[in-house]
């Protein structure tokens, strides 16, 4: 039984971590492409259309990867988490089925039109098709996050004697207090990834002195969107989420922040350090007094309950993992704001291009938003464990009773091999597209 749970969790964790590398770029990039396409309609400057087309070819590849790694996730609810699906299906599958019906069809139908139909549609309709792809991908985020929000903060349900969860209020799925802050946080984080990728490509062109015109356009767009989204992801959206956690999941909050001892006169914020679970303290700690109380409650002296206040059996299963995931996300998020403020300053001074040190930084910083996004999701998921539905259903009670660990390990190995292959292909092919560069010239 234990190893069944273990392999089910590893497989889901692995496949969803790999999957989410793609949609975070898809969602943000679709908006940036719509922007380029819109600028082309407005100004009629061919560079915007070429820019849109260049990013579309990266987008197309990225989208395909997102789709093919996404289908296994929808299947895995049933294949590996059958008990969870059976008990909560009448609720979570509302939003999952809506995702399929409202967003997947929209994205995929108009992606076909967007990729193949420029000549057939004309520029205005082509813009519209692009906009609908963007809408579809963001709607998909909305519905999947509505599902996630329910797992974190179940609403509008009743539990039958059989253990089955039953929906009693449909609207509450979308007015869930967890949904809007999560949506804003997640979508702005996807814009961070996309804008860092775009400014990295821009920096690459400027550093190699190729496609200079595009390099300038990409770096400018990337930096401006990157600045706004990096700030927005921290404040107000990240802050809002943290408040939700501190209010509704106080134990998780203490574990995330690494607070063991309650400090009556206000909690310190821990910047760096390693949780020592045996002595219940943070080793090699660097911290600033009272800041956490201020950030959370706008009051320097509000008491925040530490982990020691709660029985250990109620703690999240993996406190150090949760602590690191959260600190990596927040730490990187802070660095992103710093990089983008610096870059905006030089952009504004109109001498960014001569700051090759900064271009190098922009070039090499693109992997980090991926790490931050992933760490953010680990924070959310490890923060909920051991619960699959917060405080109502345990992860261990959600697995498929009939699928043996040997079978799951078999498919896990299969996914690992397959994803290693497609990950490699993706990197090589996107590298090639970027290296070849956008084709200058007007739309044909």
């Amino acid at each position, binding site marked *: 039984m234990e190893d069944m749970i273990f392999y089910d969790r590893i497989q889901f964790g692995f496949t969803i971590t790999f999957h989410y590398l793609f949609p975070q770029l898809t969602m943000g990039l679709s908006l940036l492409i719509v922007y380029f396409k819109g600028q082309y309609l407005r100004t009629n400057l061919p560079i915007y259309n070429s820019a849109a*087309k*260049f990013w*579309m*070819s990266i987008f*197309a*590849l990225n989208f*395909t990867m997102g*789709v*093919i790694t996404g*289908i296994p996730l*929808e*299947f895995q609810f*049933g*294949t590996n988490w*059958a008990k969870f*699906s*059976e*008990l909560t*299906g*009448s609720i979570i*599958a*509302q939003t*999952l*089925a809506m995702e*399929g*019906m*409202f967003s*997947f*069809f*929209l994205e*995929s*139908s*108009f*992606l*076909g*039109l*967007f*990729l*193949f*139909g420029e*000549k*057939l549609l004309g520029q205005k309709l082509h813009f519209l098709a692009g906009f609908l792809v963007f809408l579809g991908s963001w709607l998909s985020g909305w519905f999947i996050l509505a599902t996630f929000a329910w797992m974190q903060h179940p609403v509008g349900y009743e539990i039958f004697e059989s253990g089955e969860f*039953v*929906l009693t209020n*449909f609207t509450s799925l979308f007015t869930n207090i967890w949904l809007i802050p999560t949506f804003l946080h997640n979508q702005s984080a996807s814009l961070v990834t996309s804008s860092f990728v775009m400014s990295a490509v821009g920096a690459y062109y400027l550093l190699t002195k190729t496609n200079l015109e595009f390099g300038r356009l990409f770096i400018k767009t990337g930096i401006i969107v990157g600045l706004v989204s990096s700030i927005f992801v921290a404040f107000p959206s990240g802050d809002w989420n943290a408040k939700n956690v501190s209010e509704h999941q106080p134990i998780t909050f203490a574990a995330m922040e690494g607070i063991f001892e309650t400090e009556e006169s206000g909690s310190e914020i821990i910047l760096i350090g390693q949780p020592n679970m045996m002595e219940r303290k943070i080793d090699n700690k660097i911290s600033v007094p009272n800041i956490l109380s201020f950030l959370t409650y706008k009051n320097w002296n509000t008491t925040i309950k530490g982990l020691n206040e709660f029985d250990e059996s109620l703690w999240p299963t993996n406190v150090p993992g949760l602590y690191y995931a959260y600190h990596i996300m927040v730490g990187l998020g802070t660095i992103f704001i710093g990089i983008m403020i610096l870059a905006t300053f030089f952009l504004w001074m109109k001498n960014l291009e001569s700051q090759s040190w900064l271009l190098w930084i922009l070039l090499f910083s693109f992997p980090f938003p991926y790490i931050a996004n992933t760490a953010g999701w680990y924070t959310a998921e490890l923060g909920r464990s051991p619960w699959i539905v917060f405080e109502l259903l345990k992860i261990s009670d959600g697995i*498929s*009773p*009939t*699928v043996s660990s040997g079978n799951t390990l*078999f*498919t896990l190995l*299969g996914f690992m091999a*397959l994803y290693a292959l*497609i990950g490699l*292909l993706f990197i090589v*092919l996107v590298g*090639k597209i970027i290296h*070849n560069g*956008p*084709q200058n010239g007007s739309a044909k």
Partner: protein
Amino acid sequence: MIEIVWYIIITLMLAVYAVLDGFDFGAGIIHLFFAKTEKDKQAIVNSIGPFWDANEVWLLASGGILFFAFPTVYASSFSGFYLPLMMILWLLIFRAIGIELRHQINHPMWHAVWDKLFGISSFLLALFFGLAVGNIVRGVNLGGVINGINSFEPHYFFLPLWNSTLSPFEANLGVIDWFTLMLGLVGLVSITIHGATWVIFKTNCSINYNLKKQIPILGLIQLFLVLVSLSIWHFVRSNPFANFSEFPIFILFPILMFLGIFGNIFINHFKNDHVGFIFSTIFLLSGFFSTSISLFPVLLHSTHNINPSLTIYNTSSPEYGLIIGLKWFSIAFILVVFYTILQFKIFSGKRDDIKHVDDNEISVGIKK
């Protein structure tokens, strides 16, 4: 009552899925066995280019709808058919990269790799989906009963890929036995015909003339396989046609199914290139509905009397959610039909010269 509506919706979604993804699986099979020149291969891939991704969403959406309307069946069948479903996933992944990576690099060896992957995975998927229908029709050992004792909860089961005798009569059932294999072949031949009619309909390939000669032969094989399957059906399940004798009006569906088969046997009597595709669409739609009527109200048959079959009545979500779901589903479905029609309108006619956004950019870039 509302359960019946959702049963019809799921049947409809799966039937449309078979028609839509069926043509691009079929195109893959034709691509594998018939297309010889680079021009033809390119044309076949192009003809499904704008469609295949949206087609696959019908499978995802059908899964989502099953999950939502009949969560117990979704949970039980997806975990019970664990191995074949995972293999279907891998094949779908291989197939998708076969289609999407082909045009990334303009080199004959690169094309050869992805062409083969696309063709072989399409072939296997057509076979697997036929096998899947076979498994649903045959039923499974619900509860994993051995010597009269349940191994799992009564609505759960687990199927290995096969048992040692490939027989559908053993307690230890497998996914592949001679009965399901028969339906696998029906699926394979039907999808191949469907793909052939699509290629004739949507391309100017040099193989079209040859395909038109092959379709009647394939149609005869299809007719034979369908008749054999129908006549051996009662071995695995008693009285499979009860619903038709109770409601004779539904015999219309099997009649349409045979009309579809005969249409393609006599394909060469019709001039227009789209007629064959219409006949094979009629076959797939009415075939799905006929199967579904025969099964009603059962979603998953139990092969023994110890545990009851999973029906729409003992597995459905509560009424409140199903009724709300019907509201949003109606809106969404109208939109989806609109998108699908729009796609077919915009990419109407022969489409083998269609260009992907980066065809005239990236691949030209490689050549120089």
